[in-house]
């Protein structure tokens, strides 16, 4: 099978306009007879469900939380990008497109990314119209901040709670459609299978998480908006429930998985404090504007950081990357921290942390500026600290409070200790320009698809992509498919395909319940995470990946013999939910390692230690790997790989350098 990405012909800047004006339409009377299933109510799912219902389709939406408002999107902090050029600083659709392709280390599709940049401005308009309270200037206009990998200010934000405000906007639009009877909402429901009839996606099997009953739901099309799979690493900044189950079941029924090994590891997270750790907390990228990253020059230096004199500190990012210093992209900053800790220079109780120190800028940048505003000549250190603190507090107060809450240390007094953590997955279900997977009628939106970020995502671009997919892309592209489905009557769910799919789910659940071994689900998840983090994390080697594959296969075998799931399957049973998710992670982990092993190059978040320059920088291999790896599931541990070659007609490919 050859992959057809269905990128429209013509000039890059006209592809989407032309597509939109020539796409097949479905008339209003027919829309009412067409049913669409939307799994997931994060930014991608809520925006899609609301928009499709507004257009007149009959929508059923699903989420596993107790309310659509609690999807993981709610936790996004920093902001959302859009090429509005409100700051008059030279931003444009082309520049946003260019930054995204380059930031992704030239592993994303031009056509998709350009469309994303084109619709970005409408997203902000739509959100503001819904009452999303973005930050504003005194004059009443919208405020912007800057993020990594760009030289313009195009990030819109609502304090450190941008994801929350955007999701509440999409959620309110969704609730409005629920109230109007256009969307039927199923919360505390987990999708466990895609139902295929004559090769097309025709519905899902979902488990009612309260009663435990399996339900069959028909749809003319199915949209998976189920988020990312960072939790395969056990510890990540994702919410506890984030999982791969929906995407994985789709994969096993025929949807190809694109670039599964592309994972984003965020450099500034609060480090692990003990074996009981259940998740990691992000400290926003914006802190790197004022925090300097360092470790002691001497190994095992246990002094209080404030007692270590300037000349005995190694500001290793400033040393290695004088041009970008502390503001190198996420993948570069993460690897550099790991390198120092592995070499024995790490700090804190675990020695797996580096300092993020605000003292220098607090005193010299802000303290001095405030002092001169107040006309204080030759201020002493105490005055500088006092004045600088107030500025830092206004900029980052909530993050400093959060840090103190978790670590019991005051970052105004001592440097923060930070370490990289898994944050986002660029890989996901392979989709074409229309967001359709390789299964006709099955779509993937948001973080669940692989589409727009290549091998590394820029900050504030995930929210943009989720809402672009849901508000502005799928409402058009789904018409291409559904316009040919108007004659299809809704299929009764006693059709054998539904019966069989339901039976497959029931069998898995019964097996899980029946094992009654001696080990908890959590313990397996933790062990899988260790393997993934050590061997498929920030640094990967062929040898390590081969070991990881063998270890994962073994762990999976042990899981199916030894796991213990308490309770019954016909009740509210969070352990059973978790068991199913971990079972899927145990299969996905193997594919991620396989993908990482085959990609003999380093690009973006994928760093193969064999492929680096003498200075330790990533070495991309465009001659051999300028493609998307789309994996087709054949059997357990058996996949075929298909290549979608990436063509760059509008951008000149270059090696990224931050020296």
């Amino acid at each position, binding site marked *: 099978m050859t992959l057809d990405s269905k990128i429209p012909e013509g000039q890059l800047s006209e592809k989407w306009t032309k597509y939109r004006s020539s796409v097949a339409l479905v008339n209003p009377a027919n829309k009412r007879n067409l049913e669409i299933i939307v799994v997931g109510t994060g930014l991608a799912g809520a*925006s899609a469900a609301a*928009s499709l219902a*507004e257009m007149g389709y009959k929508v059923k939406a699903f989420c596993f*939380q*107790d*309310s659509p*408002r*609690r999807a*993981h999107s709610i*936790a996004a902090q920093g902001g959302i990008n859009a090429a*509005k050029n409100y700051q008059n600083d030279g931003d444009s659709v082309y520049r946003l497109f260019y930054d995204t392709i380059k930031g992704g280390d030239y592993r994303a599709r031009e056509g998709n990314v350009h469309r994303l940049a084109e619709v970005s401005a*409408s997203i*902000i*308009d*739509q*959100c*503001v*119209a*819904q*009452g999303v*309270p973005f*930050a*504003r200037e*005194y004059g*009443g*206009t*919208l405020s912007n901040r800057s993020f990594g990998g760009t030289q313009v200010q195009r990030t819109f934000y*609502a*304090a450190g*709670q941008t*994801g*929350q*405000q955007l999701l*509440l906007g999409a959620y*309110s*639009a969704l*609730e*409005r459609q*629920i*109230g109007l009877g256009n969307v039927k909402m199923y*919360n505390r429901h987990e999708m466990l299978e895609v139902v295929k009839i004559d090769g097309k996606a025709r519905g899902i099997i979902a488990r009612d998480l309260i009663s435990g009953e399996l339900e069959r739901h028909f749809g003319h099309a199915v949209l998976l908006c189920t988020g990312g799979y960072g939790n395969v690493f056990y510890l990540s900044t994702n*919410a*506890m429930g984030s999982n791969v189950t929906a995407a994985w079941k789709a994969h096993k029924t025929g949807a190809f998985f694109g670039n599964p090994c592309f994972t984003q590891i965020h450099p500034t997270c609060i480090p692990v*404090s003990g074996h009981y750790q*259940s998740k990691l*907390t992000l400290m926003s990228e914006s802190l790197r504007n004022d925090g300097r990253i360092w470790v002691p020059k001497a190994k095992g230096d246990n002094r209080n950081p404030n007692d270590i004199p300037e000349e005995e500190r190694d500001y290793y990012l400033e040393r290695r990357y004088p041009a970008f210093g502390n503001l190198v992209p996420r993948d570069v900053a993460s690897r550099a921290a790991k390198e120092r800790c592995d070499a024995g220079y790490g700090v804190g109780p675990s020695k797996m942390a580096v300092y993020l120190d605000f003292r220098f800028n607090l005193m010299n940048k802000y303290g001095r500026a405030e002092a001169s505003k107040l006309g204080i000549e030759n201020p002493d250190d105490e005055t500088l600290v006092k004045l600088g603190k107030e500025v830092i507090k206004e900029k980052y107060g909530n993050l400093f409070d*959060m840090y103190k*809450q978790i670590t019991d240390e005051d970052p105004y007094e001592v440097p923060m200790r930070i370490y990289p953590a898994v944050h986002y997955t660029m890989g996901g279900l392979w989709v074409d320009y229309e967001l359709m997977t390789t299964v006709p009628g099955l779509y993937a939106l948001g973080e669940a698809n692989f589409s727009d970020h290549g091998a590394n995502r820029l900050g504030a671009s995930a929210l943009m992509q989720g809402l672009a997919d849901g*508000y*502005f892309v799928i*409402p058009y592209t789904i018409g291409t498919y559904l316009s040919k489905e108007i004659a299809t009557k809704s299929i009764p769910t006693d059709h054998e395909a539904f019966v069989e799919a339901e039976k497959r789910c029931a069998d898995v659940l019964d097996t899980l319940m029946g094992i009654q071994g*001696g080990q*908890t689900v*959590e313990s397996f998840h933790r062990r899988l995470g260790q393997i993934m983090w050590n061997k498929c994390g920030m640094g990967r080697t062929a040898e390590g990946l081969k070991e990881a594959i063998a270890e994962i296969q073994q762990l999976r075998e042990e899981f199916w013999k030894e796991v213990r799931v*308490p*309770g019954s399957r016909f*009740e*509210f049973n*969070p*352990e059973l939910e978790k068991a199913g998710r971990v079972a899927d992670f145990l299969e996905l982990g193997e594919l991620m390692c396989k993908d990482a092993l085959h990609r003999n190059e380093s690009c973006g978040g994928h760093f193969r230690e064999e492929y680096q320059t003498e200075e330790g920088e990533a070495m991309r291999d465009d001659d051999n790997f300028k493609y998307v790896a789309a994996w087709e599931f054949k059997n357990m541990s058996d996949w075929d790989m298909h290549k979608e070659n990436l063509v760059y007609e509008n951008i000149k490919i270059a090696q990224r350098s931050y020296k």
Partner: protein
Amino acid sequence: MEKGINVTLKVWRQKNETSAGSFETYKVQANPDMSFLEMFDVLNEQLITEGKDPVAFDHDCREGICGMCSMVINGRPHGPKGGITTCQLHMRSFKDGDIIVVEPFRANSFGVIKDLSVDRTAFDRIIAAGGFVSVNTGNAVDANNILIPKEIADKAFEAATCIGCGACVSACKNASAMLFVGAKVTQLALLPQGKAERQSRVVAMVNQMDAEGFGACTNTGACAAECPKEIPLSVIATMNREYLAAKLNGK
């Protein structure tokens, strides 16, 4: 240098909505740096290994933003510290030997699903009744066409930070949902985008709130005192004013 503290938990156990519940006592060894929910993870692993049923509780983000975690801890929704959610509470807030009583958010309109999990879907139905601006996708004007003064935008944002957790209802002796509803009404009443439906919105939301069986407000202020996002009591006054205006207008 593991520094451990031993605590005794008295946890509400209830099999499902219809069965009667009771307290069970457990002993857990905790590390002061763990979060309260991580302490529950430890307890649950212990219970599963002993062949017992783990305690069901809701949680997801574990950083104070999704509103999923609940729990009344020693009589207070989200525990002894102000301005945070249960998932942000750490064991260093407790001492060795402490007895900690943990119950679900209780209210007539929040049925217990199991143990510490409750049903808060009434909140969604209140939003579906009117907690939105009726603007279809694609209908928006340029975002900077309508200027909103910073103070107004900041105030709207403050009200919009409600995480829909339900602690306000749980804290109130009348199980009133006025703080939650007031927060949304206030946000949208402040913004120009919300003005067109201002009156119909408040009436629809209040009607739904009553239909869900939430109690009346008697101004004791327990809701705002326990709200993890520190939503101010003034949103209730705003809501009452909006409601009255709408009623006077015959809505």
